[in-house]
């Protein structure tokens, strides 16, 4: 068995100023290329866990390692670099810079990460070709590639976001409810494309949703309330703090 892509051990996390932990997870691993469906009711700490996985938040105890490196061993600037080198994101919506073209949006991670740029060039020859390959793979017609992102429909925008998350083959893709703004047909279409693309690049995928109808498509399903050992009172505190900006 290969080393896990993401490894969480003895995680304890509390929001600043709070005594009680809102997340307490003994162990959670995601293998390379594995697709994981993470679900739970809203306010159970899904987004907090994602932020911890991405090294945006730091845990109080325990460790979170991505591709063998613990986030806590890196300085903030190094974390920023490491994150873009190894991770792609897809948000719920508003993923794109509306004034850049579809192609430029897709290329954005390669502008900030030389690792991603090198990987993309290695795969397709040039950055331009890499972006076009991914956009084509996401089923976006070439006529829209040079259009500003704001001209696209929400469904098309999410596919551009997926192409952007995957360009340069990051080891891990995190998707935070990316289908919540899509209707049912578009949702299934998007999921198909995302899963097959992750398989193609052997990227691990952590897909967060509260919509369990999609769960069957993933290799593993994790209910966050099931693995979170924090007390119910402190979980209530999670709900409280999540309402804050």
């Amino acid at each position, binding site marked *: 068995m290969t080393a896990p892509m993401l490894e969480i051990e003895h995680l304890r996390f509390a929001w600043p100023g709070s005594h009680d932990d809102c997340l307490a997870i003994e162990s959670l691993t995601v293998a390379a290329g594995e697709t994981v469906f993470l679900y739970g009711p809203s306010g159970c700490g899904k987004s907090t866990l*994602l*932020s911890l996985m991405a090294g945006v938040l730091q845990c109080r105890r325990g460790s979170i390692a991505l591709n063998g490196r613990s986030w806590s061993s890196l300085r903030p*600037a190094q974390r920023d670099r490491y*994150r*873009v080198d190894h991770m792609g*994101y897809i948000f719920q919506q508003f993923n794109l*810079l509306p004034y*850049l073209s579809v192609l430029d949006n897709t290329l954005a991670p390669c502008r*900030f990460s030389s690792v991603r740029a090198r990987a993309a060039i290695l795969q397709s020859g040039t950055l331009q070709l890499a972006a076009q390959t991914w956009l084509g793979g996401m089923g976006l017609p070439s006529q829209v590639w040079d259009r500003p992102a704001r001209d696209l429909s929400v469904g098309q925008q999410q596919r551009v976001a997926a192409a952007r998350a995957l360009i340069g083959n990051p080891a891990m893709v995190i998707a935070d409810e990316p289908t919540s703004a899509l209707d049912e047909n578009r949702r299934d279409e998007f999921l198909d494309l995302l899963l097959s693309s992750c398989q193609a690049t052997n990227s691990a995928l952590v897909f967060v949703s509260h919509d369990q109808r999609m769960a069957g498509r993933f290799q593993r399903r994790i209910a966050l309330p099931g693995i979170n050992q924090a007390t119910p009172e402190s979980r209530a505190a999670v709900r409280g703090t999540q309402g804050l*900006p």
Partner: protein
Amino acid sequence: MNRYLWTLAWRSAWNRRLTLALTMVSIALSTFMLLGTERVRTDLRGSFTSALSGTDLIVGARTGSTQLLLYSVFRIGSATNNLRWSSVQSIAQQRGVAWIIPVSLGDSHRGFPVLGTDENYLRHFKYGNRTPLRLAQGKPWADLFEAVIGSEVANRLGYRLGQRIALAHGSGELNLNDHADKPFVIAGILQATGTPVDRTVHISLQAMEALHADWFAGAPIPGNRISAEAVRNIDLTPRAVTAVLVGLDNRAAVFSVQRAINGFQAEPLMAILPGVALDELWGIIGAGENALLLMSGLVALVSMAALVSVVLAGLGERRRELAVLRAVGASPKDIVLLLGIEGGLVTTGGIVVGVCALTAAALALGPWLQSRFGLILDPTSPTELQFMLLGALLASGWLASLVPGWRAYRLSLIDGLSPRT
């Protein structure tokens, strides 16, 4: 990498061009206001002291130096005592004296002071930056009953050359004491100077004497009127004048001449240095200057607050954009750089527009301001305070533009991961 940030900054800015244009206009207006107030404040003093130049001494009967300056230069108030004509003549013969301009005040024409003097007034009187008086129309008085009027007198009263006017005794409130029996013809109109000269009706000393030939102790002598024709036949050598403006051959002699005049034997006289007296007078009325300085300060505060609020208002608009940028790998340093580029360029642009607008306005409105308010604006010589204000504007605008960067540093990635639209 850096080139990419510049491209990104430009694309993002172009996307928000309307907001940015408004920000720039607001910065330009702040600049205009701030520098304009400061310009007026600075030049107000300059304009005040420019009422008289090239005159080395002002001589009058013993009184306060400020009072002598007020009535001889600004035509405010009146003299308590006059100088005898013989004294005037001996001052003119003092060693080192190049020229003298005798001035005789006391009458008025519809609220404008009347000044009796001689041809030296047009030859030697200087104002501002040693600018001599020039006639806009007509010629100096040649006949006894001819007058040369200042530009404001002509404009306000709509006077033209050749028109006949009647002078009044004293300040003219009581028309009983009218000099209507001896009307004057307007022979010349002076160019605008922005000094009290504009508000003055000039006649010859002889005319002044003729007006009062049949007067005694401030009233006409009853039953002994002398007609305008008859008065030409009597001796019109002035008996006394109000003050004398003195020009020297050599400025270095100013203190010895002053001492000589102050020690004059025949009657008690006083000689003052106009520059010193102007400074003293400014010290009294300069409270207005402090008010303007306070005003400048308030304008600065308000402009900078407006600037910061305009920049911060754009923050909400950018929050999502910055979150996306952070999520695709832009470091906080990149974000701050991006905002700094934009903030710096917009602030600089706004300030440049403001300075250009102010300079253009000062040049365009300069003549009007000078003739209407006597204010001479000099947009070409910025003051030290103006540079400091510009620096403060630039710094506050630029710093305000970085505030979203500071917020982005703390928030944007979490924002991006769990978006709240």
